[in-house]
């Protein structure tokens, strides 16, 4: 019983699209960050699907490295969000207008 790889790639593409919409539309930095995590994992799903398709364990190794990079990114990103928004009354990227952009 094997499921077609294309179906997993479809789910992966839709998940990535949902994450991209989240980053473009939302103003809350935490929600934007979670949408980025969504996109990381969409790519992970397609990597695992291709690893299954071609019987290559290198795809699994790549996903492992991506998970490590994502964990590091979350640690650094969250501390930056905390430092930037700790003294503001609401977490909203629109309040970051110090450069009059």
């Amino acid at each position, binding site marked *: 019983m094997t499921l077609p790889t294309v179906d997993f790639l479809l789910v992966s593409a839709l998940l990535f699209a949902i994450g991209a919409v989240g980053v473009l539309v939302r103003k809350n930095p935490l929600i934007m960050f979670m949408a980025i995590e969504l996109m990381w994992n969409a790519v992970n799903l397609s990597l695992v699907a291709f690893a299954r398709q071609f019987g290559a364990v290198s795809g699994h190794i790549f996903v492992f490295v991506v998970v490590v990079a994502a*964990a590091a990114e979350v640690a650094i990103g969250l501390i930056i969000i905390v430092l930037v928004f700790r003294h503001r009354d609401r977490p909203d990227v629109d309040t970051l207008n110090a450069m009059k952009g």
Partner: protein
Amino acid sequence: MANLIAVLAAVLCLFMGVVVVSAKNPMHGVIALVANFVGLGVLFLLLHAEFLAVIEVIVYAGAVMVLFLFVVALLMAGTRSPQEARSKTLPGQVALAIAVVGVFAALVVFALAVHTVLAAPPPPTTSFGSISNFGTALFTTYLLPFELTALVLLAAVIGVVFLARER
């Protein structure tokens, strides 16, 4: 049976993804993202990536999302109500974002529908995706990338400690 589980997991993933990006309260977004990762873990299992499914649930749904929970609790504590924490979007921002991403998604779906080169995947060897298979590859062929991930994590640790120090 596997088909049914795959469809259920995929629907769970996509629905929870929508919940994440539309959540008014970031706390609800974190919970939905955990459910999304569990669904992804099920999909990984169906793709014979057993070790990665475990990693996905333990590292992502466990460790990373706990970090998220702490920061959400810390940041949202000062705001009066989570609903107030939303400001107006630019005119046409939502429509434009959905249009742009919709074009991307349509292109991918079109490519997947047209591209029929991928044959049905061959039945995996019994050890494919197991911890022994994964570990053998990680510690022999991919030893250098594995060592370099340690450097990435070290850089992250030093960066966080530097940023969080007392001023």
